[in-house]
């Protein structure tokens, strides 16, 4: 505020702007001139800026600006910089023995951080952001201590690299091996894989046998009858004791963990119509293309999954 108006009585000396609304007049307390100049300076700055930098929106994109500045390019440079910084530790990760990674603090902390984000991007859609899978949908929970194909770091690494029952990777786990549809009502490829056709009563008997060996309430008479059917048909994969077989991804039927659910209704559905879950390959690529994940990424995510609490 310039000193002058304050020294004098505003009503007499400041004067008005001449604006008058119903008798209410606007006093003229002038703004400092430097304020006006800084306003002009801002306009000048904006003009210069809009020439030098991307500014005016067009239909596709914006005016590029003569300096060629691009935040996208900046980000690309930053990503490249981080990739270069990470190159040595990635090389070390690929070269290291799988079981040795977790004993090396530096490698482990890198693998955990990288694995976490790789998991969130690639694995979470099926296995869930928290890796708990989807109960009843056949997406396994990776946090528990039950593993279809083994929970060692090597087994996890192999599963991630090749996937399960996919039609792409010749080394995928369980190619051609499924839980067939045992019901005589079932049709299609899954039904063809079954060696025997079971009628509803027989299915019910096997279901009760499975309920029994998993420690749930079962009809004793049906279960006894089901034991023979189990031994004849199911034991080949699930084992005589029903504890499963990791070589063919046959689940342990005696524990508290179920891939699709352990209730009578779900078991009836599973035995009658079969199951054949699929996991894509992450490390295999046909000639001339790149795999979805590189070896260092697969190792990182394997270490991450192995450390979630159920690793063996």
């Amino acid at each position, binding site marked *: 505020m310039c000193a002058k108006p304050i*020294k004098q009585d505003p009503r007499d000396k400041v004067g008005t702007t001449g604006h008058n609304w119903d008798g209410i007049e606007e006093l003229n307390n002038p703004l400092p001139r430097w304020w006006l100049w800084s306003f002009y300076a801002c306009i000048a700055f904006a003009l210069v800026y809009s020439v030098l930098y991307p500014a005016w929106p067009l239909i596709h994109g914006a005016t590029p600006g003569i300096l060629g500045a691009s935040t996208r390019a900046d980000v690309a440079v930053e990503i490249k910089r981080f990739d270069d910084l990470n190159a040595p530790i990635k090389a070390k990760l690929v070269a290291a023995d799988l079981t040795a990674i977790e004993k090396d603090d530096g490698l482990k902390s890198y693998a955990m951080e990288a694995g976490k984000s790789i998991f969130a991007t690639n694995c979470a859609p099926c296995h869930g952001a*928290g890796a708990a899978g989807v109960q009843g949908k056949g997406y396994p929970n990776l946090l528990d201590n039950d593993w279809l194909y083994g929970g060692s770091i090597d087994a996890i690494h192999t599963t991630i690299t090749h996937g399960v029952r996919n039609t792409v990777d010749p080394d995928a786990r369980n190619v051609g091996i499924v839980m067939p549809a045992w019901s005589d009502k079932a049709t299609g490829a899954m039904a063809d894989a079954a060696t025997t056709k079971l009628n509803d009563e027989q299915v019910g008997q096997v279901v009760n046998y499975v309920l029994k060996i998993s420690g749930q309430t079962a009809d004793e008479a049906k279960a006894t009858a089901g034991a023979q059917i189990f031994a004849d048909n199911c034991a080949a994969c699930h084992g005589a004791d029903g504890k499963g077989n990791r070589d063919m991804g046959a689940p342990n039927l005696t524990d508290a963990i179920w891939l699709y659910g352990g209730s009578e209704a779900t078991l009836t559905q599973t035995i009658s119509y079969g199951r054949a879950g699929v996991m894509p390959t992450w490390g295999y690529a046909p000639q001339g293309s790149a795999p979805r994940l590189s070896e260092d990424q697969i190792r990182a995510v394997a270490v991450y999954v192995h450390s979630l609490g159920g690793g063996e």
Partner: protein
Amino acid sequence: MSSTDEPKLYAAREPIFPRRVSGKFRTLKWWLMGLMLGVYYLTPWIRWDRGPQMPDQAVLLDLSTRRFFFFMIEIWPNEFYFVAGLLIMAGLGLFLFTSAAGRVWCGYACPQTVWTDLFILVERWVEGDRNARIRLHRQPWNWEKLIKNGIKWSIWLLIGLATGGAWVFYFTDAPTLMSNLIHGTAHPVAYLTMAVLTFTTFFFGGFAREQICIYACPWPRIQAAMMDEDTITIGYRSWRGEPRGKQTVAGNGDCIDCMACVNVCPMGIDIRNGQQLACITCGLCIDACDTTMDKIGKPRGLIGYLALTDEPLERAGQHDKPVWKHILRPRTILYTVLWAGIGVGLVVALFLRSNLDVSISPVRNPTHVVLSDGSIRNTYNMRLRNKHGEDRWFVFSATAGGDVTLALDGTEELRVLVKANETREQRLYVTAKAGTVAASAHHMPLRIWISDASGPTLPDTGGVIPKAERIYKDTIFNGKDD
């Protein structure tokens, strides 16, 4: 009634040449200026021994390791509430002082006021007092004006450089940085910060001055809401001074219109116009007027600290309300209580805080995991902060309504080593056997006990770990939800 002249919507800044003045407020301001500038410039150089591997700077904002050191106090990022508390106290303190004694912050303590005061002092040393400065300002550019301005600006720049320099010393070890600055090996950010602060100090203190207070600072506006008719502030006793004019004319008041109060004002205002936004209540007009009153043999205090409620009393020839009656009123008491309450809370929190700092957050995705034997496992992410200057073992145990077992990720033992002054992230697994209360309940409280064992290596005491300190954290254990 628009004036016949075209109204001017913009006005040039009118330069202000405050005259030298002496008196009790001027003396107080010199002392305060010396104290505050001294504290600001010298604090980074105070040393404080914290033992090996720790910085020995008494006040240090260590951004690289995210620590704040203040003498014996060390604040970690998770304790930022201390800083928030201090800021709230600063805010309430401003409310309190403003409602009790007006804009004392503006007049005596604000950096803008203090540095401007210092810059005006330099200006007076180089160019002389008010009249000499006005003369110099009005004369055309010649060698004298050039040299005097050159000297003045150089000194201002040096002060600005010292100001910016002192600022960066708060963020890293001052002697090391000083040496690096001189040898040109300091971080570019240090130079950039110093350059910015040098320029802003030079410009704000030398040229912008009262423009900052009037146009840039929100506080003059906010303070209107903080003050009331009992607030003690600087005012002109118009009932005593008016009509102003020559003493020889009968009927005139005490004000002889000597303009001393206007000439000393760093804001260029006339306090006789009453309370105004531009007045920072620096008290210099009181000194100026008292000097004049002494000369003409009138009582002091024509301009002085008073409250609006005193005016009717004084007009009626009565005594002012005592100062304590002005100050002690509900709002000031409320501000004091709030201010002190937060202060006491902070001090208590400061002394109660543990060197063992653990935060536990339960993993909620999923809430629990069923293991193959049917037992229920919960997972907790922990942050273990070791605030000791030495490596420490953190040892875990738990109490819960049911029987639970603990396990740590990555180790067979129930203890982890946390390095000195570091934070470690650690996952904790808590498992309840199938059929136990904990496994069947929807959820139940769980108390995790953490104790620390000192020493870089765990002493061999046959499994018994000497406990240095023991804290607990309460959390929730989720059972099978069916």
